[in-house]
């Protein structure tokens, strides 16, 4: 296994390359069991939906499980809201890390590129470590990296759709040009989508709905754990080229000449 292949982000080494979201879980116990089964060491929480002040809540669960929290700005439509939400998170959770999410509208939940760039600059200037959730646009991803994002997180498909990776070529292009970690974020439907993301060269995969709204979240979480590990190994193992014509796996040489 990839035992000696940590995912390093902002100087922190993580064994697991699966980052989990928490939205949509039917129960706290169920969420806890799914997070455990996923093997995740980093989990993102919507600061607008969960209050760190409330006892016995999600934050307690993460603390008890020893899982690092990546606060996110889900639900923000403007750079201003996102910056304020990030500041709230930094104060409450004592972390500079923030998953920056600035969405354009409630129907597509697609990132608003202009506000995203603006918020990234403001947050970097304030000392945040910005994990930028972005469109699968290689130009925008590159720009976010130049502005100081510690990770770029292109979507595979719109949030919650489970449509998989709609533009694998763009993801590959983003990966090939990035000097910071690339995390495939959003749109994952099932395990093979996550394996593909890793095969395309992504450093990690972030997903929530595919697990939390699955009929058996624990089993699905375990499936993703294996898929991410498998995809990582495959990406490093050097796949064979695609060929038009068959090539027998055993050589033809040495056959009896009848």
């Amino acid at each position: 296994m990839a035992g000696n292949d940590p995912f390093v982000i902002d100087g922190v080494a993580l064994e697991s390359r699966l980052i989990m979201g928490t939205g949509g879980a039917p129960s706290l116990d169920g969420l806890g069991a799914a997070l455990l089964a996923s093997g995740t060491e980093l989990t993102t929480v919507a600061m607008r939906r969960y209050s760190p002040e409330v006892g016995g809540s999600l934050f307690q669960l993460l603390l008890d499980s020893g899982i690092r929290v990546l606060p996110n700005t889900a639900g923000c439509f403007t750079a201003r809201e996102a910056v304020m939400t990030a500041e709230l998170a930094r104060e409450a959770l004592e972390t500079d890390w923030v998953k920056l999410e600035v969405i354009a509208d409630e129907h597509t939940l697609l990132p608003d590129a202009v506000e995203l760039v603006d918020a990234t600059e403001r947050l970097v200037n304030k000392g945040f470590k910005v994990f930028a959730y972005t469109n699968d646009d290689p130009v925008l991803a590159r720009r976010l990296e130049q502005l100081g994002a510690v990770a770029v997180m292109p979507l595979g498909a719109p949030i919650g759709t489970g449509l998989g990776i709609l533009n694998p070529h763009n993801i590959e292009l983003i990966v090939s040009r990035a000097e910071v970690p690339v995390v495939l974020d959003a749109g994952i439907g099932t395990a093979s989508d996550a394996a593909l993301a890793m095969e395309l060269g992504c450093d990690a995969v972030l997903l929530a709905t595919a697990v939390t709204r699955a009929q058996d979240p624990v089993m699905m979480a375990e499936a993703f754990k294996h898929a991410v590990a498998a995809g990582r190994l495959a990406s490093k193992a050097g796949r064979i080229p695609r060929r038009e014509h068959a090539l027998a796996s055993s050589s033809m040489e040495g056959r009896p000449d009848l």
Partner: protein
Amino acid sequence: MAPQTDAAACDVAVIGGGIVGLGIAWELLRSGRSVTLIDPAPAEGATFAAAGMLAPVSELHYQEEDLLELTLESAGLWPGFAAALGPDAGYLPTPTLALGADAADRRALADLREVQLAHGLGVEPLTVREARAQEPLVGPGISGAFAIAEDHQVDPRRAARAILAVLGASDEASVVRRSAAGLVHSDAGDLDSAVTGVLLDDGTVLAAGEVVVANGLAAAALEGLPSRARLPLRPVYGDILRLRVPAHLDPLLTATVRGLVRGLPVYLVPRADGTVVIGATQREDGSSAVSAGGVYQLLRDAQVLVPAVAELELLECTARARPGTPDNAPLLGRVATAGGEADVPGVVIATGFFRHGVLLTPAAALICRQLIDGIADTRWTRFRPDRFSPATAKEA
């Protein structure tokens, strides 16, 4: 260290006058016991907000089959419970129509139906035209409909008022409008000794043969809970709306309409008085105020299912906290002592009903009565409140 001022002793003291506490108090009164209900503001918590859907079928969730046995039991008890309470109970055998807004919503409902059918529950697919023949104000753009005949409703405010009236009219019942501060034990130094009464917030002790803890989220903060009654409750806030249907649209609906709109649940419950209840959000943002975004989401999604919602008069926006537990199941039953060798005498816990307080009230009342009668129904031991607090070796 129990203070000396004693109020009149009773057979059972029930802490908490939400629908669950009221139901328990009334059940125990009917069993021939004298009862004191303790609550500074009865029926003004989650009961005040609740829509009162009695919906074990449409509320079924994957992997919550354990809860289904209890919700079905309680739904079966509701008609008799309401009948004993009289016509003011607000019970209606309104059927339920589950609707999907888009194709993915229809598939989600159809997938859930497989589980519902596996449990022998009645969920009948309808065509959109059939559904709209029954409910002509349902919008034509929906993607699918399922009829659920056995999911009914009660108006929790009316039911609570009716029970309070019964308690008020009985010589054997009293309502103390104060907060409980804690439980009083036979041995003040031993949390696992018998509970003998309730300490009120003014320092008064109310002696009782049995104490039922049914004050929702506040239960966890009571002093003197048994050592293994650490109650893992958290507030899950909900926004809910009440609207009046104008005469020209009456009736807006004859069935309770609930559905998924782009993956988000929403329901519309028509009341006998010409109002409609639209709910409910689930928020863990720590805010007890009504959320503007929550109200917007409810109205937006309700209008997808029933466009004429836009014509209604918005009477009331309410937010309350539901007492959530880690496994979404109630904390119901007696509590074992630290070593697990016996139950702590004199106390029964009944809280953590989360989304199902109204539905589970008759079952909770019956189970409490049985426990106090000394009858333990083993079907319900999985809801014991001590399941989250492991037994510890007794100290030497």
